[in-house]
């Protein structure tokens, strides 16, 4: 099963079990979404529960907030994460703050799904990975899936969560993992994480997962970079503990700290620009907790502090070679 089918299974399961769940966004109804995540759901569950919206992200999110205030559990799609910004005020000042600002009298359990990240020749406005713009907002939970298995398990937990959740999906990995070679386009067939349990399946929010065991360096990644990091680790020849963060807010600090205290070395990989990226938070927290265990500086391999390019995206995204180089550098100390 690929990520698209896994996400659809989660939505189908929730729509079947919980009448409060309602799904909408641009092109998600009759057509089933430009990435096909909601394909067939309108036919199965009715146009009153799975439907199309006007092209207005701020309108989609504000309407979802109102529905959530009045007892529903809206799951909305923002077609590309790059287009979430017309809704930024609604997300940051409204959705994230309702519970707190109303003294707990009102809350709105909206889930916003959004394809994010590069690797599809999408240029600046179909490739960004804006997670740190939301991890910096108190009141939001932020999730970033990476495989069919955790796509289903994390989405179910996100929709069932009583807090608003921003759920990012690595669009390059929808139909197969991305190992860093743009010309290599595998499917999920045969990948261990393409195995997805039938029926209701949950992965608790706030828990990281181990992708590879190793003891010479800890590598932290999320989204598509989990798979690219796997290639980088292979190329480095270093025994690495690869951790997929899965939930960015709240994040699993214990898993990271435990690992870095053991390995003494750490490389953080993300697609988003380096400065003020979420890797900065990881790095700062790790040095606070692991300073006396560190054998080398904590390194970050990230996108550059530039707009995401079109023709040169393979030079923008962290490559296996850059990741391998960083891992090896941690071994020099």
């Amino acid at each position: 099963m690929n990520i698209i089918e896994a996400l659809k299974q989660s939505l189908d399961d929730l729509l079947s079990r919980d009448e409060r769940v309602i799904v909408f966004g641009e092109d998600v109804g009759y057509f089933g979404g430009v990435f096909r995540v909601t394909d067939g759901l309108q036919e199965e569950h009715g146009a009153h529960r799975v439907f199309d919206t006007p092209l207005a992200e701020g309108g989609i999110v504000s309407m979802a907030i109102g529905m959530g205030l009045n007892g529903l559990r809206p799951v909305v799609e923002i077609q590309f994460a790059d287009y979430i910004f017309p809704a930024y005020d609604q997300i940051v000042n409204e959705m994230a703050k309702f519970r707190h600002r109303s003294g707990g009298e009102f809350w709105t359990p909206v889930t916003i799904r959004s394809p994010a990240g590069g690797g599809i020749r999408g240029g600046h406005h179909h490739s960004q990975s804006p997670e740190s713009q939301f991890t910096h907002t108190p009141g939001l939970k932020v999730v970033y899936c990476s495989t069919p298995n955790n796509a289903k398990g994390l989405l179910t937990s996100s929709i069932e969560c009583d807090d608003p959740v921003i759920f990012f999906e690595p669009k390059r990995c929808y139909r197969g993992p991305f190992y860093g070679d743009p010309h290599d386009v595998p499917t999920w067939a045969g990948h261990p994480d393409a195995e997805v349990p039938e029926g209701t399946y949950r992965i608790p929010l706030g828990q990281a997962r181990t992708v590879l065991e190793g003891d010479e360096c800890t590598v932290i990644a999320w989204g598509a970079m989990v798979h690219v990091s796997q290639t980088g680790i292979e190329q480095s020849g270093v025994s690495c503990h690869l951790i997929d963060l899965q939930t960015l807010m709240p994040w699993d600090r214990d898993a990271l700290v435990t690992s870095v205290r053991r390995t003494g070395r750490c490389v953080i990989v993300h697609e988003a620009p380096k400065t003020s990226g979420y890797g900065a938070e990881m790095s700062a927290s790790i040095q606070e907790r692991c300073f006396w265990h560190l054998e080398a500086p904590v390194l970050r391999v990230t996108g550059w502090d530039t707009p995401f390019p079109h023709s040169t995206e393979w030079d923008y995204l962290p490559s296996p070679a850059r990741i391998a180089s960083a891992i090896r550098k941690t071994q020099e100390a």
Partner: protein
Amino acid sequence: MPEETPVATSEPYCIPTAPYRPGDEASFESWPWRPGDLNRPDPVDCDAAETVHHARGMVRVLGDDGVAAGAWDPKLSPENVITGLELMLRLRIFDDRMMKLQRTGKLSFYIRSFGEEAIAIAQTMALQPQDWVFPSYRQPGAQLVRGRDMVSMINHCIGNEMDNVKGRQMPVHYTWREGRFISISSPVGTQFNQAVGVAMASAYKGDDEVTITWLGEGTSAQGDYHYGLNFASVYKPPVILNVVNNQYAISTHRNLATGGSTFAERGISYGIPSFRVDGNDFLALFAITRWARERAAAGAGATHIEIYTYRSGAHSSSDDPSRYRPVEEHLAWPGGDPVERLAAHAIASGIWDERKHAEAVQRIDEEVVAAYKEATSYGDLANGPWPSASTMFTEVYSEVPWHIQEQREELGV
């Protein structure tokens, strides 16, 4: 090559300004619109095109002589007229007392509804108790209609230990779930399409609930206003969308909010029946809201209402309108004062008189004073006791996550 510094032409484009500035004598043209001018369409079958004249003209019920007339006369019982009048008086007296309290430093900020009291009072009275109220900051009066304890309102404004939102919001940003009064937000207009969502959920659940929301004419320049109109026009949920045109957004005159038609007319292009109503006419406000509720409850969709009024006071306690408009401009407003007009109507109807009015003012003032004495006995912003600092860390999420718990422990609360 160095760039040449451009020289501006003197009037390259239009920069609208207010009609009158400090020192000017305001002189508004008298209104051509009279009670009885406009028909009352069938609320269920009404098409937006039928309301063009209503959107360009003005729905009025109370004539200058205090007599109610025309198809829109809601024919309120004497009890309802007196209730409405007393609630408006209560709101005005409450506001005046709170403003004085603000000057003592016991609260940081205040917003009065002065000159606009009829809006929240009449419109909320025209609704059912189960209807959702999604206010802007000049509709706190809706709470008085639904019987919120004034002590509780003041506790919020002065941010003491009893504040139901735990000292987290500025004064006047009320929340009251019991009264279906949804939390007021500072970023203007954000509530407009949220209200559409609340109404969508009511329709989805099959509940007999209508949602009402307001924003100001200045805010109608925001995208959220147009999201609200557009989503309401597409999905036709049971919602009442109000634009309070009180002429000013702080110092920004309404002619900077749009260069076009009346605010009401914009709703017609969205296919939503749209009305302009005299915002200082309690009976007209009541009638139009009843009409809109009937339409919404029948499943016929939204109504868009421009409430034509004048912000008689400052924008807020932090504002000084004498810097940008004549101090007495509100006295020249053709719509007069909403409280005086309903009182004149009640007197003309023989159900009210000067003595009753004076007695009501005194009784309400005593109640307001008693309420603020009680509230300040629980603490105030200047002197405390305030809510525990631990309230900063709770209800950010449904459960306190580890990183916030750590920060709470770091502060030691």
